[in-house]
Each structure stands twice: as C-alpha cells, then as structure tokens.
C-alpha cells in the first residue's frame, strides 16, 4: 500500500513522551509560581459590572464615587472592588473616545439589582457629561456557581466513560479495553494541555473551558479511532507473526496524511474564527477559539505520538510478562521448549509466537 511517510513512531516514542512531559512540566511550574489559575464567577459566584463612558475621567475619581456609594449599601459596605479599564471597542462613530470600566466585586458576592442601580445612578449624577451606561453585567449566586461546576464535572466524566465504553466495544479484536485505556491516556494529555492554555493566557475557567474540553475529547478520540481502525484492518491482512510494533508503525504512517489534512482544515476553520475575533477583540470567543485551536493540534499529535506508541509498549509489556511467567516455571529456555513439547501443539506455537514477537519488538525499541 502507498505510504508517504516513513517515521518510526515507536522508536521515537521516548522523544515524543519527553516533549509532552517537558511542556507540561514547564507549564506546571509557571502555573504554580507565575500564573495561578483563574476561575470565572460562573463557578465561584460573584459579580462583574462593566460601564461604558466617554471623556477623560480620572480613575481615582470614578473609584471614589463608586466606593462612596457602596459604603451606604447594607449588603456591600464591607466589600472592595477590583477595577480595570479598557477602550470600548463597540464604540459608535460620534463617540470615538469611549472607554469601559470593569468592576469586579471581591468576595464572590452576588450584587443585588437595587445596589447596581444605586451605583449606576451615582455615576450618572457625578459625571452627567460622560454618559455612563451599563455595557454588560453578570452576577452569579455562589451556590448556583458550585452547582454549575459539579454539573460540568459530571458531564465531562460521563463523556469520558461513554467514549471508553464505545472504543472498547468497537475494538474488541485488537485488545478492546487496553486500546480504550490508552486512548484515554491521550485524552488526558490533551485536557492537561487545554487547561494550561487557559492558565498561561490568563483566561478564567468558565463555560467555554468545559465546551472546549468536551470538544477536544471528541476530536482527539476521533483521530485515535481512525488510527485504531487502520490497525485493526492491517492486522487482519498481515500474518499473525508480524510484530505489533511494525503494524502500528505502518498504520500510523498511512493515517498521517489524513490526520494532518483533517487537522489543517479544522484549524483553518477555528483559526479564521480566532483571527477575526482577535481583530474585533471579542473576549468571549477568544477564550473559546484559542484553546480550541491548540487543543486540536494537541489532539492530532497525541493520537499519533502518544496513544498508539503507548499501546504498543503496553502490548509488549504484556507479552514479556507472559514469557517471564513461563520462564519462571522452568529456568532455561531450552528446557521450556522441551517441556512445552509435552503440552499440546497449539500451545507451543502460541508461546513461540509470543516470545518472538516480544523479542522483535524489544530490538526495535532498544535500537
């Protein structure tokens, strides 16, 4: 069969594992010491209010007005607010100097509509010429946030279980469960990468995160399945003596064009979204498109370089174990051959095959 690439994935698997682990380690260190994980108010509860205004106002004046207002409120008098300022990108033409001030209340507190109205009115009164307007607001009750978080967690777990089950069912012939478990190892790899994208780019974990995680689960598994499907097919065609590592390597090389092409078209699609949202600066979609794109790359990579090689290692390990068990019973190999002659013929053949397979694979990986 035609084969465009000749990459020995199995032999190079240590390099691939090294690259993945290295990236994760660096991200983990950065995550712990430099960029702590942010969690959106959707999960923690809390309030963010954004006002658009025009003209040059001093930040401290605005903050003083707001702080004075909340001191009068029963529910908020002990709270502090984190402020941030940005240009208003949705500005109209006659109002080119429009800015946005964003208020995030510390303490994950849901701010009541009455308190919000009081703040809006105070700002309007203090700066009548600056046309303060509420651009967006969001307030989530803390218990509701926790609830939502558990709902998302349950969904991710359910998705993972369903998928392992499906892979195991579909691929009984090439080792069912072990193939499913290795596919999941690749999925975990992708999820960790997606998580680090959120952490490194300072994007709070929110509903977008869950959507991306689920999407990458599906996409990465899709890639892995196409490869497993090819392994299943090649295995049927090739003689039972062919070492598993060789079959997997051929399958990977044959599937590579497809995996890369599909990744390219998918990345083109989500990439267009990312580029356009970066130009228009639509925050809510950047935190969706960027991790999605990196997740897609990671998904294709993990299917080729993590799931299949891991599975080969697992299979070889199993074969080796079997062999060792036999060797344990009888010390030397010669004896084992003699012994097995006493057993049924088919058994002899099988154990010979297994040990040969294991040896062949061992030489391959050791090179």
């Amino acid at each position, binding site marked *: 069969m035609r084969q465009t690439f000749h990459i020995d994935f199995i032999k190079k698997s240590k390099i691939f594992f090294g690259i993945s682990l290295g990236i994760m380690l660096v991200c983990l260190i950065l995550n712990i010491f430099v960029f702590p994980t942010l969690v959106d108010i959707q999960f923690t509860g809390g309030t963010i209010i954004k006002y658009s205004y025009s003209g040059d106002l001093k930040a401290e004046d605005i903050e003083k007005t707001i702080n004075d207002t909340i001191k009068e409120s029963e529910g908020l008098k002990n709270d502090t607010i984190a402020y941030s300022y940005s240009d208003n990108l949705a500005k109209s033409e006659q109002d080119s100097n429009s800015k946005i001030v964003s208020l995030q209340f510390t303490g994950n507190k849901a701010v009541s509509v009455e308190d919000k109205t009081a703040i809006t009115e105070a700002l309007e009164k203090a700066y009548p010429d600056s046309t303060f*307007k509420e651009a967006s607001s969001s307030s989530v009750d803390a218990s509701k946030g926790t609830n939502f978080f558990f*709902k998302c967690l349950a969904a991710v777990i359910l*998705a993972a279980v*369903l998928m392992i089950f499906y892979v195991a069912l579909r691929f009984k012939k090439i080792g069912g469960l072990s193939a499913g478990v290795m596919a999941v190892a690749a999925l975990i790899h992708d999820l960790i990468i997606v998580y680090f994208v959120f952490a490194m780019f300072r994007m709070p974990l929110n509903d*977008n995160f869950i*959507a991306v995680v689920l999407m990458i689960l599906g996409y990465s598994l899709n890639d892995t399945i196409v490869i497993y499907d090819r392994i299943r097919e090649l295995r049927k065609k090739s003689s039972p003596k062919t070492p598993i590592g060789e079959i997997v390597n051929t399958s990977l090389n044959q599937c590579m064009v497809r995996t890369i092409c599909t990744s390219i078209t998918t*990345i083109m699609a989500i990439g267009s979204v990312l580029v*356009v949202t970066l130009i*228009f600066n639509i925050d809510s979609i950047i935190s969706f498109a960027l991790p999605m794109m990196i997740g897609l790359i990671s998904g294709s990579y993990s299917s080729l370089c993590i799931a299949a090689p891991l599975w080969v290692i697992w299979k070889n390990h199993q074969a080796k174990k079997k062999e060792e068990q036999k060797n344990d019973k009888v010390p030397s190999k010669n004896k084992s051959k003699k012994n097995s002659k006493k057993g049924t013929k088919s058994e002899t053949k099988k154990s010979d095959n297994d040990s040969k397979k294991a040896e062949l694979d061992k030489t391959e990986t050791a090179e």
Partner: protein
Amino acid sequence: MKRIGKPVFFIVFVIILALAYTSVFGIYGENGDFKITYIKGINDMRWGIDINGGVEAVFAPDGRDATDDEMESVKAILELRLVDQNVTDYEIYPDYTNDRITVRFPWKSDETNYDPDSAISELSATASLTFRQGSEYSGEVLLEGKDVKNAYSTYQTGSDGLHQHVVVLELNDEGKEKFAEATRANLNKTISIWMDETCISAPTVENVITGGTATISGSFDAASAAKLANTINAGALPFGLKVESYSTISPSLGNSALQAMGIAAIAAMCCIFLFMLFMYRLPGFIAFIALLGQMAISIMAVSGYFPVFPSFTMTIPGIAGLILSIGMGVDANIITAERIKDELWTGKTLDGCIRNGTKGSFSAIFDGNITVIIVAIILILVFGPANIFSAIFGVSTTGLIYAFGYTLLVGVISNFIMGVGASRLMLKSISGYKFLRNKRLYGGKKSS
C-alpha cells in the same frame, strides 16, 4: 459496480445550490404591503442575547420552598409581565426541582433607551392582584390577592347544557365576606380582575355569590383557562421573588461580533476550498460542493426553514460550532479521498478504486463521528434548559454554549447526508464522464 447515471451529478449539484440559496436568502412573497415569508432565511434567524444584547435572569422564591403549582403561577406572572413590557421573544425555563425560573430575552431592535435594572426589577416585583369595580383600573378595589385561596381551571356543563372550560375561584373567609358584598352591589355589572396594571379578566356578575366559590365562564379553551387560573394564583402567592443571578448585555456590544463571525465563516470556507482543491483535485472539488450542502442543512435546522422545526436561538458559540463543523465535515471526504488514492496506487481500475475506497472508509468515518455526536449530546444536556441533567443540577444560565452543542450535532448529521451520501453519489456519477477519468484527477499516478 452499479452504475450511477451521469446526470445524477448535476441533479445533486442543482439541489445543493437551491438549498444553499434558499437557506441563506429565504423565499419571500408580497401581498400588497405585507411581506410574506414562505421560507425563513438567515435574516429571520433568532439571535441570542450575546448578539442582540439582552437580559438573562434567574428568579427564585424568596425564603421558602415552592410547590410545583406555585412555580406554574410564578411562570404565568413572569410571562404576563414580559408581554406587558412588549417582549414577545422571551425564553422562560422553570426548574421545578430546585425552584428556579430562568428568563432570557433580547432587546427589541428599535430599543434605544434600554434599562436592564428596571426590566429585571419589574419582573421580580411582588404580584399585585386586585378585583375592581367596573372595567377600569381606576375602579374601586373590591378584593385583593390575599383574599384568594385558590383558583383552578376545569371543564363543566354550563346552564345551557354545553360543555365549556371555566375557571373556579375559591376565596378564603375574609374574601368570602367581601365578595358576597361586592357581588350584591355589582349584580349584572362588571367586576374586573387586574394583575399589576393589566386587566386579565372582566366578567359580569350574574348572581350574588355568598359561598366563597365563584365560577368565571366565557370563551375559554383549556390553555387560556389554565393561564387565567395560574395568574390569579400568582396574585395570591405567599412569597415574593428574589433575583438570584442575572446578566445583561447592551445591544451595541454584540453587533460587531455577528459581523466578525460572518467574515470568519466566509474566510474558513475559502481556505478549505483552496486546500481541498489543491490536495485532492476532483474529489476535493466535490467535497466543497458537499460542504455547501452541509452548511445549508445546518442553517435550515437553526433558522426554522422547515416549519416543523421551530427556529433556534443562535449565539456566537453556536456560529463558532457551525464554522468548526465546516472544518471537521471535510474529514469524511478526506478519509475517502485518501482511500481512493491508496487504491489507485495498487493499479486497479478507476471504478474499482472508487468503489473500494468509499466502502473501506465508511467504518472509520462512522466511528469517528459517533464520538463527536456523544460530545454534542452531552453539551446539549449540560447547557440546555430542561432535561435529566438539569433535574439533578438545576437549569443552567449559560444558554450560549447550548447552541454550540446543537450546531455541532446538526453539523455531524448533515455531514452524514452530504459528506458521505451526496459526495459519493456525485463522485460515482461524475467519474462516468470520459474526460474526467484521468486517474491524476483523483490523486493517482500519471495514467499510462
């Protein structure tokens, strides 16, 4: 191989073009000054609050558990108030398990002075039910919400022997006295029933009612009778509503987003077209036609093209899902085209290669798509309004991601129709043309 006729390609092609055109532009007619929509296009799409701007709020009974019937009443009053504020495009999701009601509505397109705070406050205000003399709001107040014990709709035989839907009103002891007096004073006159400042019913008193149970009859059907009963009950609710969480978005913030996503969709289509043409030549071209068809079906499923499917609220993540499904959709074509290439290199005939290639690739395409379907369904379950998940965890407020799951699911299904079904028909048909039988067009070696 069963031959597929040469004209099939053009028939499929024309059908896809027609679907694509009508799904985007719709079909409209004119009847005098009225514009009649025969088929809904993109302009009739219902956009979510992240595009049009709008309000989403979750209400909960203040300080106590509510029964399912009480929640029905809360829903009835919220609906009444929304219509009062001229909001007709609202979505309302009651969650009976956790006693929450989620309301979501976009700003009207001509709304200039939007005020989210008062919109939310008006919705959560304590219901004020009054029975007034005459049919004007200025009429004297005869009874209030606290005098009503219960109201329910039922089906009974009227005095004229006809079956009809009626609303039965039960009053408590205090109400009984007041109502007896009121009906005595207003016999054969009108007593109107008001929720806030909206008249919900204006029956004429036919008897003096002293027993504390009155029947309102009229031209009710089952639904309108139930609605009136629910609304009256809302006025008698022993609790107010508190706003548990809310989010508001001003209309100007979302407008540029829609435009941006449109540009992204067109850019993605163009890139993928060029890529597929370059990589796979003829099958690549066909893949693109199929992709147009896939987009058309996806848009139809969202816009309410078929009257049986109501139009869906489209959000920015929903559009992102559509664009993503463009990229993933060609996967079916890529797998098939790669297979055909493989077969061609073994030196078989073109027809044999196309047959084997399409047959051999099906299981991979199928398996791969199942996983995406699992994901899409779970996304719909988690972020959707009412289902098993929300029974355990409560209705979620983030309806934006719900649209992503929906478009993803629609994308995968339409991909089965177009990327697998229609592309194969077209490929087998077009390969019947002599001048298109050069194996190079399919990615094979130079034919000798």
